[in-house]
């Protein structure tokens, strides 16, 4: 099965019809979902439910924060942001702001009754600047007015004086000066120095991996209403309602139970609303409490882009020893994350970069060092992959470099380095138990993409084509699943059955488009033998399920699905007990199927309709509500030794990308992509397919067109969609074959043996970058692979081309280290 859809006669017919529509055009992306086949007998297909909000999305009825009704006297908040990157605030005169039309309240740090630091894990994030300014876009003050426009206009009336200092914008220089937001961490296995000394070949190189703006389509937004006691109700576009509850309570100086946080859905999150949605809720909560009126805060796009952190840019280096076959013996990898001005989540993000500096390959005896550099930019934060993608980039660079050095195809060298028996322990001590699966995925996509035939065709083409060069690359993904902060690996759920038989399930996860609520409803429906329509989720609320973890680390369905299953199975067992007693049925082998409770078999079979069962239980005073809980087993990690088993399991995938590059202009196109991705036994193949495809394109954007640029004063100048270019419709590869791996349930007891799917596919996009390098390497007859920092914009590609055509010694990529330097 190549894709979600079987290539049956009917779908082939459908395809032909589409081709007619599409006459004269390239091949279709992939077989389209055929509605008539949606409910065919195939097991996987039956789970391909539409997103629970799909109809609301397409009719405009799905409400986001700014769509929610608020009282007529609701206030609108606008923020005064720092125009400079580093300095001391010497004067903040807000008198004219206060007198501006429509203004009701103006607040600064002195107006905060409770905590003024809203750092999520470690302190360092002032809600408002007190004295020291640390980045352009840092919040100085907030204005509440009767309209959004009035608030924004009032902000412009502020008189701000700043004693400006020089800004530190170079993460490498900061690392060298040990200017870091958290201590450096090292993972080490075996004697890496000896391994380098003993290795027949040693290469070293460095790379810059650019950051990424989340560009969620719905910007940061919240609506806060004062409650009748000392608290507030917060409606927020937010991946971590519990943390927002905590921070709002601390800022207001009220107990946590005075604050309720609700998130129905986000218009995109991608990590950008994990920690960085909270400050706005805190500010709006202050206004709501001070004025007794509802308060709205949403950031205009340019302010959102400046005020919030991004994916960390990384500067990575490797020095690796390998044998004549290109198999790594050991070495040293350094990853420097540009954290921005404060810790935020950078401890764990740089850790995850370190955990993924091996990707799917054994590093042998290796040391991996992670440095958390401080710069005067917004505090960089979670973004799909959470440092993992940046870590993988260094080893994928090394694979290409090593292959050229030993004169082999990069795929050959990649395969030789994959984890395998005898080389199955990572540099942090975790055993890779499914290494056979990685090899299988790589080999299958190698075959299904006709890698070697296309490799030959490309070589022939490139030999004859002086300007246009084609490139091809297969890169694998092995991504560790679990929060590396162990305590976050827990989840709760709350399930109610009402007396008409309808079911409400709440859990700690949030919906940001990834289909989590759909999957959770599926879990509850499956456990209770009901149609999906009978199960609904209202919203994520801190007063329904408390003390939740962020919806992050791809863990939403893994954790909350298990908690929902726990709740549903508790309720089911309770109903079985009740039914056995009430109806005098055999408790053994009782089951809930298709809206009925079924007991016994054959002639002795009894069936009781769900609605009747629920009514009877209610009348007999049986609780129809249950809560569930889950904590991931087995995982541990010791930061003192840099070793452990931080991941419950790994999710895998592989992608083959082909590109064509115009070496005169630097323009390029991605012409074909083949993906095989491992989601275990899929909870919902349609949703998982969406995650794989969307993740790939987002990863491709990160490495190609999405360029963050700051000026030399530290001001982000790519601050909106006119200058920051995420992939557009035409960037979808004309041939895009995406397949979910079938028949390989998770080796660990995850929810129905599925695997997490949110983040891993993003890293499939690395194949595009590697293919660009492959195309460029053709200019030097594949003797070496050029350095290509990311994003590999047409500018970077063209400048790399120019360097290859007019090489200076320093322009080549990886250099063979001299004996002395080892």
């Amino acid at each position, binding site marked *: 099965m190549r894709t979600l859809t079987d290539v049956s006669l009917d779908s082939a017919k459908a395809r032909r019809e589409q081709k007619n529509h599409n006459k*004269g055009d390239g091949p279709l992306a992939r077989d389209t979902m055929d509605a008539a086949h949606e409910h065919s007998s195939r097991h996987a297909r039956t789970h391909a439910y539409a*997103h629970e909000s799909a109809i609301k999305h397409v*009719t405009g009825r799905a409400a986001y924060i700014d769509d929610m009704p608020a009282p007529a006297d609701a206030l609108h908040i606008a923020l005064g942001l720092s125009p400079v990157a580093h300095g001391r605030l010497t004067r903040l005169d807000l008198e004219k702001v206060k007198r501006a039309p429509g203004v009701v309240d103006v607040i600064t740090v002195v107006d905060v009754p409770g905590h003024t630091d809203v750092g999520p894990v470690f302190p360092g994030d002032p809600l408002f600047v007190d004295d020291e300014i640390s980045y352009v876009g840092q919040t100085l003050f907030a204005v509440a007015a009767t309209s959004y426009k009035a608030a924004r206009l009032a902000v412009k009336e502020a008189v701000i004086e700043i004693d400006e200092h020089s800004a530190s914008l170079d993460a490498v220089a900061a690392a060298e000066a040990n200017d870091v937001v958290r201590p450096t961490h090292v993972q080490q296995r075996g004697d890496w120095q000896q391994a380098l000394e003993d290795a027949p070949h040693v290469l070293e190189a460095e790379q810059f991996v650019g950051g990424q703006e989340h560009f969620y389509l*719905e910007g940061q937004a919240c609506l806060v209403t004062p409650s009748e006691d000392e608290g507030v109700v917060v409606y927020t576009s937010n991946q971590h309602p519990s943390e927002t509850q905590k921070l709002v309570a601390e800022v207001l100086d009220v107990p946590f139970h005075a604050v309720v946080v609700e998130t129905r859905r986000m218009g995109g999150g991608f990590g950008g609303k994990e920690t960085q949605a909270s400050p706005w809720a805190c500010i709006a909560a202050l206004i709501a409490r001070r004025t007794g009126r509802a308060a709205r805060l949403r950031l205009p796009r340019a302010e959102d882009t400046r005020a919030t952190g991004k994916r960390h840019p990384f500067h990575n280096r490797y020095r690796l020893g390998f044998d004549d076959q290109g198999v790594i013996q050991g070495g040293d990898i350094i990853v420097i994350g540009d954290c921005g001005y404060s810790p935020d989540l950078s401890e764990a993000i740089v850790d995850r970069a370190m955990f993924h500096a091996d990707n799917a390959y054994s590093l042998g005896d290796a040391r991996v060092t992670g440095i958390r550099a401080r710069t005067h930019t917004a505090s960089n934060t979670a973004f799909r992959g959470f440092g993992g993608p940046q870590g993988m980039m260094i080893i994928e660079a090394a694979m290409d470099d090593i292959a050229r050095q030993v004169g082999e195809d990069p795929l050959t060298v990649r395969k030789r380095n994959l984890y395998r028996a005898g080389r199955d322990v990572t540099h942090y001590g975790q055993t890779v138990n499914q290494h056979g699966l990685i090899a299988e995925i790589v080999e299958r996509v190698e075959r299904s993409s006709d890698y070697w035939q296309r490799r030959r065709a490309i070589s022939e083409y490139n030999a004859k084509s002086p*300007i246009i060069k084609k490139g091809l690359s297969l890169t694998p993904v092995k991504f560790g699943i679990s929060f590396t902060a162990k305590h976050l690996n827990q989840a709760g759920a709350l399930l109610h059955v009402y007396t008409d038989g309808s079911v409400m399930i709440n859990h700690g996860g949030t919906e940001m488009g990834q289909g989590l609520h759909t999957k959770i409803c599926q879990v509850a429906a499956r456990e209770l033998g009901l149609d999906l329509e009978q199960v609904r989720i209202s919203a994520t609320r801190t007063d329904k399920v408390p003390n939740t973890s962020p919806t992050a680390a791809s863990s939403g369905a893994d954790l909350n699905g298990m908690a929902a299953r726990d709740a549903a199975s508790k309720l089911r067992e309770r109903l079985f007990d009740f039914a056995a007693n009430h109806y005098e049925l055999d408790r053994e082998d009782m089951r809930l199927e298709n809206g009925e409770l079924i007991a016994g078999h054959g002639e002795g079979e009894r069936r009781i309709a769900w609605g009747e069962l629920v009514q009877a239980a209610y009348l007999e005073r049986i609780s129809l509500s249950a809560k569930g809980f889950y904590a991931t087993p087995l995982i541990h990690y010791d930061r003192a030794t840099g070793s452990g088993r931080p991941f419950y399991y790994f999710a895998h995938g592989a992608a083959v990308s082909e590109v064509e590059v115009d070496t005169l202009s630097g323009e390029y196109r991605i012409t074909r992509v083949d993906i095989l991705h491992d989601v275990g036994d899929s909870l919902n193949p349609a949703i998982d397919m969406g995650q794989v495809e969307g993740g790939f394109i987002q990863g491709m954007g990160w490495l190609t067109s999405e360029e963050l640029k700051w000026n030399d004063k530290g001001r982000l100048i790519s601050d909106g969609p006119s200058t920051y270019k995420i992939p557009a419709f035409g960037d979808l590869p004309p041939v895009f074959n995406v397949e979910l791996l079938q028949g390989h349930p998770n080796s660990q007891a995850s929810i129905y043996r599925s695997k997490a799917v949110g983040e891993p596919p993003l890293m499939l996009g690395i194949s595009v970058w590697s293919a660009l390098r492959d195309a460029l390497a053709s200019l030097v007859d594949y003797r070496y692979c050029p350095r290509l920092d990311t994003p590999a914009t047409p500018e970077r590609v063209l400048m790399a081309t120019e360097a290859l055509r007019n090489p200076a010694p320093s322009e080549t990529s990886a250099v063979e280290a001299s004996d002395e330097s080892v």
Partner: protein
Amino acid sequence: MIDFYLNGQRQQCADIPPDTSVLELLRLQLGKNGTKEGCASGDCGACTVSIGQPNDQGGLSYHNANACIIPAHQIKDCHLVTVEGLARGDALHPAQAAMVDCHASQCGFCTPGIVMSLFTLHHSQQTQPAPLTQQRLEAALGGNLCRCTGYRPIRDAALTMQDHPDTHPIWADDPDLASNVQSLYSDATKKGTSSRINESPGRFDSPKDIATLRELRRQRPEARLVAGATDLWLEVTQQLKPLDDLIDLRRVVELNIIDETPEGWWVGAAVTYSRLEPLLAEHFAAFGHLMHRFASSQIRNRATLGGNIANASPIGDCPPVLLALDARLMLDGPNGAREMPVADFFLDYRKTALNAEEGEFIRAIFLPRPETDQHLKVWKLSKRREDDISVVLGAFAWRMENGVMRDVHLAFGGMAAIPRRAPGAEAALEGQAPTEAAFGAARSALRNEFQPLSDVRGSSEYRLVAASNLLERLRLSLDADFNTNAEVCLDAYAH
């Protein structure tokens, strides 16, 4: 008074300030929250709506546009369709049904805009069916960003929506809708309209002819001119500048005419790119091809050639092409009309020969009819292929006469404070065969006559290298031997 139809229902909104956008009108005045704000700059498409205007067949033609940067006063006399206006009760419109079936929404925030672009495409397929080529799909959807799906399911929805039952919106049952809109439209067009806004100081005038426009310009030379508003409106949404005195050019008859003469075409300054596209495609293929990479359909449906010139951005896409074509401008105003070459119009960064103090405006642009031996190449370089602004744009025109190049025009955008020609490089090629030596000299000259800036879109060095390489691309494209054996540039960027 803004008098229009919204999803088939007549709406009359009074006292709307001139700097209100259609998006604000919908969300703040009319409580229609289905249309989303993603960027408020016309770059993401989340706020896409469909606008119906009377066509020659007595029906309504629909185009998609970004509600965030349309002045609310410009929706007068139109039929505005939003995402709330498609489904018929529980029965989804094919554009919606296909999106659901293809699993084409994830977070759903861009979805209303995508649905509206699909609706617009579906409507045009119903009235004028044509193959859904990749180029057509890109034109329909290139202005709608989606951060979640990666677009594959959206493409599938576009390809399959025709197969869904053709559920019409309820308003499509109204046989009088087109004529009602038509009569609003022609009333207004006959009279011209002037809106004095009572509650706030402000005016929004829509003069009907050039005489009225001249008079308004004489009275209020400080009033801002607005046509497509695709750039002007960013002053409101991004810089919060007040725009309370506006004169709308979209109703001025003379500014909306394309006048063909034996020598060429006079294109009215308020003609939109969408209207201009067929002419360009027929007579200036390379210029026509540029249109596919010029912003998005939402923008091309509104933006005007006159605006692109008056705006005088050094990175506007069309000025270099107009320079290469020796286009001329007709300026007009209270003190009469005058003509000038486009080349004389751009004086310095965002400074033009237009005498704005005296109320002058661009009336029309003359595109000389290409001579049979004239060649034109237009190459735009940008970070993203679709809906991006040029980092460098090269427009090259010349004639081949007995194997040598004549009337060589090499014009560039993104290389200086104004769009301008490269006289040194032109001189190196004039009268020369397209040899490596001649082009080598041209490339050297080019590097000496431009000192481009480094900015968010590209570095100075990159701009120089790329511009120089475009000349090399030109040479190779003229080299028959090379051209038959190898590709000069990627298909997707050809012309």
